[in-house]
């Protein structure tokens, strides 16, 4: 990937409401490579920047099914094939006794997949990111809301995008060095 001297242009807003409205207008203006930052989850925001494909549920489902299957098959293989113990002639494949470990393995693998899947899809851990070069961005984890248009966006041009963002009446605008 070609490195650009400028990573993007960032606008600061005072409330979640302003940010959602600004993000909507930016997306409507045709900008696609944008992102928004808030100090708490804002449900409407993902929709406003045009993010709809969330794969976490699928990853979790696959993990949970894998966990359940491996839990059951492990017990079957141990109790029937590898280490059969004859207890008063009872069947080796005593499936009711295997339900609990199968259940626990389903939960365990599902939960691990949800967590690891979420972090991996988010690209975390990521020790360095250009947005942190903006000093005011430290407030994104407190009480300020930020919108960024990445320089990689085809519609991006440093002057025009800045003018456009100024039209959204932000509290401040800064260029993000990469």
């Amino acid at each position: 990937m070609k490195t650009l001297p400028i990573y993007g242009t960032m606008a600061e807003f005072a409330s979640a409401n302003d940010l959602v409205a600004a993000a909507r207008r930016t997306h409507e203006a045709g900008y696609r490579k944008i992102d928004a930052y808030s100090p708490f989850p804002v449900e409407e925001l993902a929709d406003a920047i045009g993010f709809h494909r969330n794969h976490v549920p699928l990853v979790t489902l696959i993990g949970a099914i894998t966990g359940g299957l491996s839990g059951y098959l492990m017990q079957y293989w141990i109790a029937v094939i590898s280490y059969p113990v004859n207890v008063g002639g009872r069947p080796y494949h005593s499936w009711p006794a295997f339900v609990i470990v199968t259940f626990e393995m389903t939960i365990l693998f599902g939960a691990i997949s949800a967590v690891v899947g979420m972090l991996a899809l988010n690209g975390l851990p990521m020790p360095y990111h250009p947005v942190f070069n903006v000093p005011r961005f430290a407030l994104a984890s407190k009480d300020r809301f930020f919108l960024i248009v990445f320089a990689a966006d085809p519609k991006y041009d440093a002057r025009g995008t800045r003018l456009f963002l100024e039209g959204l009446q932000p509290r401040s605008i800064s260029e993000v060095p990469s």
Partner: protein
Amino acid sequence: MADHLEEVEVANKRAPVIEPGHTFATVTDKISSIVLTRPTSMGWVVGFGACFLVTMMLLYALGYLFLRGVGIWGINIPIGWGFAIVNFVWWIGIGHAGTLISAILLLLRQSWRNSINRFAEAMTLFAVACAGVFPGVHTGRPWLDYWMFPYPNTMQYWPQFRSPLMWDVFAVSTYFTVSLMFWFIGLIPDLATLRDRAENKYAQMIYGLLAMGWRGSARHWARYETAYLLLAGLATPLVLSVHTVVSFDFAIGIVPGWHTTIFPPYFVAGAIYSGFAMVLMLAIPIRKIYGLEDFITERHLQNSAKVMLATGWIVAYGYAIEAFMGWYGGNRYDASLLWNRLHGPYAFWYYMLLLCNIATPQLLWIRKMRTSPVWLFLISFVILTGMWLERFVIVVISLTRDFLTSSWGMYYPTRWDWMTFVGTIGMFLMAMFLFVRILPMISIFEIRQLLPEAEVKSE
């Protein structure tokens, strides 16, 4: 939604979830300053030091146990399960309230949970860690505990998956792992807040490492919220299963007083009962000392008291059915167990149990009791004692008098039993002391969500 909630609250004349007048900035400052700028008080040092000494006593008791074996405890045939199992069940039960608050109340959209879920989850983790000590050391040869896990080995042997003790291994280890992940995931955005606000270089580095570069991107939040909700959905059946499986350790056996189908629901209710008592015993001093009455309001105390009252009645129902079945079931061993509980050598403790778990909590019907922190603290202490006695009654009375009079015996805990038990309480409190000092004990980002200014007006 926040407006609507306020209207309902005004209509019901209930205390608010957060005292009015807070903004994103004040919430952030208030909670993060406890960790970042508040000086370490003398009280904290003394409290932590005392708990540290008690933890050292635990290590001493365990060291001597490893040296001499479980014979230093009061257990002997017929009572092979003494304090170790009583304490294990008690601690695991206490942990349940944390998951109930963080997962089940999240799914039920109980927004008041947002101010108590963080430290309740921490409480869960530490309680499960204390619980884990006991089955670990009561095996007799704790250095071989890894035999309980299925792994390919040169002995060509595998664990027996038809045994409830194996189910327990899987249930408890899954519970601990999932609780840890749930807690850590919940912490990430707050760790980012601490990273951005810390002035000390090392604090910045450590919180920065733990926050993993979290920057609050909308895409990240969307996936984060989904993962959090899915974890809650997975943790809900999990927490109900854990005490169910613990009760199977008893119910699958044929010992009178253990072999009953009511055990799973009654254990789960008892777990939540004792867990909320522990939540209150921690929340009441913490909110006072750190001045968090704005976030942990009267409403939280009242709601917890109501949960205790409700689960207390489920537990009372469990006792009633146990006694009724002993009389009505027609099994002479069950009848004799009932007689033993009422008149046998440990009868005093059975009556104490009824006093602690059924009689005392009825005070919570009175509104004044539910809103008075001092009374709630005392009642919670009584309930925790009662729940410990319940496990003592279940484990010990059944074992002292089984089917043959020739195998009857008595159980007397030794000082090593007591040192181990008190030691785990010290370890638990030591972990809580560390937690309130180095991590935000209230979820900052979830409190921000509850503020009226967080609302987004739909166009």
